């Protein structure tokens, strides 16, 4: 296991072992892509309309918000932490966006996006501050802030509902317009994904996140500012959840205090299905985003395939178990291969 983690943290090293490991994890992401392709193909054969323009648009729109949350969550999980508060941050930011437009209807849209991002980042900073400064487990802190942020949201909304009529048309169009058949929101998600993926792969700060997740103590001893990096991972996750909240508001128009409720475990599920190890140190944001797309596709493919939609949740659960089982089998194989190599010189 340690051999796997250590080598994935340094792709620059071109030893045979590192290349093998890289290949395996490439295979891992290709695996999800393959599963996704298979699912789409089978569903399309059952009902060709599944590949119609409208249906694809719905599918992309549906996975966008989950994918953005999954990217943020992946950054946190790679550092061997977890952020359970993302659903509540999304809710808070979505309601903030709505109230903002109610208060001043002429507000430029970029300002609203910025407010959502900053609000999310502040929530993330609360998480990160508690975790990095007080050094307490992320699971406990974010379980706490899951309640706190949602509670603040409830107090603020107080049973009110904001309707699409309260929001400017331009903003709602953002949630439904397409460019060349691809929803605008999805393009936003792709930009987020590519930026995050590039940072994690090619920047020192990104590589250090993997090192922290592989072995926090070793990372600290080798001079990595663990506290600061973990703090920023949570700020990033919070900011992305805030962005997701704004997009949620744009897409659905109707908002109450329940936006994004109970979505935290879905997000973690997407990340795990996407091949990010729950104990950190390996995986990629691309995998996490693919995991989100796969989960959403399952949800919309089941009714098309004539399967009782009540099976959806069970299928997701089975998929998570299969994904972590597969990861474990791959890790054991890689470890054995690496050991074999080193013992034979």
């Amino acid at each position, binding site marked *: 296991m340690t051999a796997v983690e250590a080598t994935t943290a340094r792709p620059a090293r071109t030893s045979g072992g590192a290349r093998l490991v890289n290949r395996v994890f490439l295979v891992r992401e290709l695996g999800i892509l393959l599963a996704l392709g298979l699912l789409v193909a089978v569903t399309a054969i059952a009902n060709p309309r599944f590949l119609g323009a409208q249906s694809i648009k719905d599918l992309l729109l549906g996975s966008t918000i989950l994918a953005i949350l999954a990217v943020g969550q992946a950054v946190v999980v790679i550092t061997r932490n977890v952020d359970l508060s993302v659903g509540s941050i999304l809710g808070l930011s979505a309601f903030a966006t709505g109230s903002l437009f109610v208060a001043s209807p002429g507000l430029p849209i970029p300002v609203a996006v910025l407010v959502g991002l900053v609000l999310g980042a502040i929530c993330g900073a609360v998480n990160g501050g*508690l975790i990095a400064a007080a050094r307490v487990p992320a699971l406990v802190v974010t379980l706490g*802030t899951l*309640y706190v*942020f949602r509670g603040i949201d*409830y107090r603020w909304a107080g049973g009110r509902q904001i309707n699409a009529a309260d929001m400017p048309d331009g903003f709602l169009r953002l949630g439904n317009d397409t460019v060349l058949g691809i929803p605008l929101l999805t393009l936003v998600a792709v930009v987020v994904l590519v930026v995050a993926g590039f940072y994690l792969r090619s920047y020192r700060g990104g590589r250090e996140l993997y090192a922290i997740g592989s072995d926090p103590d070793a990372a600290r001893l080798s001079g990595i500012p663990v506290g600061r990096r973990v703090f920023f991972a949570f700020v990033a996750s919070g900011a992305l959840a805030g962005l997701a909240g704004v997009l949620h508001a744009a897409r659905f128009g109707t908002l109450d205090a329940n936006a994004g409720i*109970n979505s935290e475990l879905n997000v973690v599920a997407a990340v795990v299905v996407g091949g990010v190890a729950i104990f950190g140190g390996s995986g990629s944001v691309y995998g996490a985003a693919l995991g989100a797309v796969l989960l959403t596709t399952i949800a919309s493919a089941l009714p098309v395939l004539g399967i009782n939609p009540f099976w959806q949740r069970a299928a997701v659960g089975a998929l998570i178990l299969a994904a972590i089982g597969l990861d474990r089998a791959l890790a054991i194989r890689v470890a054995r291969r690496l050991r074999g190599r080193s013992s034979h010189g």
Partner: protein
Amino acid sequence: MADPTATRVRSVFGSWDAVVLLALVLVAVVGAVTVDGAASPRFWRFVTLEAIPIALIALPLTLVVITGEIDLSVASVLGLTCVTVGQLWLWGVTSLPLVIAVAVVLGALLGAINGLFVTGFGLPSLAVTIGTLALYRGLAYVVLGDRAVANYPQSWTTGAIRPIPGTVIPWMILVVGALAVVVGLVLHATPIGRSLYAMGNNAEAARFSGISVGRTKFWLFVVTGAMSALAGVFWTLRFASARADNGTGLELAVVAAVLLGGVSIFGGRGALLGVLAAVALLGTLRNVLQLAYVPANTLTIVTGSLLIASVVGPNLAGRARERLRRRRAIGGPPVTTATPNPGEET
């Protein structure tokens, strides 16, 4: 991840159990004095009814967390057993003992699946039980869809919440109490209990000292499943309703109670008394606030803040003490043991 600072923290606070118990007494007394109706027997009946299923699940979950694992699927096991009780009734099973037996065996099986994935295949319990959380809840939906089964005989539903003669407190609390005594004795007075702490502190070392870590954890998951199922039967009968979404989100409430009770999420530390006090504290607080017409959402904020305070407070206090100690040690011989663990340094 044993945390020596934590041991020192205990001497700061006396013990965490005492802190939680004190908070419970404080909430109960302040509530009784300031809030109308918070001293009535009816009030305590509601608090107890609410606490019973949470306590039933928290008892075995405490042991699971002490060994360094977690089970997030408990509320889904509860939901699936609720649905099973409903389905059995629809099929015409009229014997309550049989229904309970089937439900508990089913819960044990579901727990065994968790245990198999965690101990047999060596997968992280957090990921496994997030998976089975979705899987078991999904199966509940598959069985009942969005229907509800609600027409149970009066003897079942009132039987579940019948008071202890002469009081208004439901008799099920006696069952919870008896189970708590058993679990408490096992945890705090037997070699098995000591071995749970040992494997939570260092599973590897525990294995080398002859403790069968895998088998013990497997059975803990089985017991957790069975107890969640028992809670599910109680839930169904108390609300006279079996629905696939029964108890959704309850896992976080139970985990919150266990952690607030002073059990370390990394394992190896915690006591049953603190957990039981935390279950009672959260239940009492919720009902007091409700009676005081404080909106329910405030309680969400309070629960969350309490949870955060329960880990941040002791930790910061311990670190402050540690700094003080080290400052005193300056000038003396180099005290290497003053470094609690490398993880605490920056």
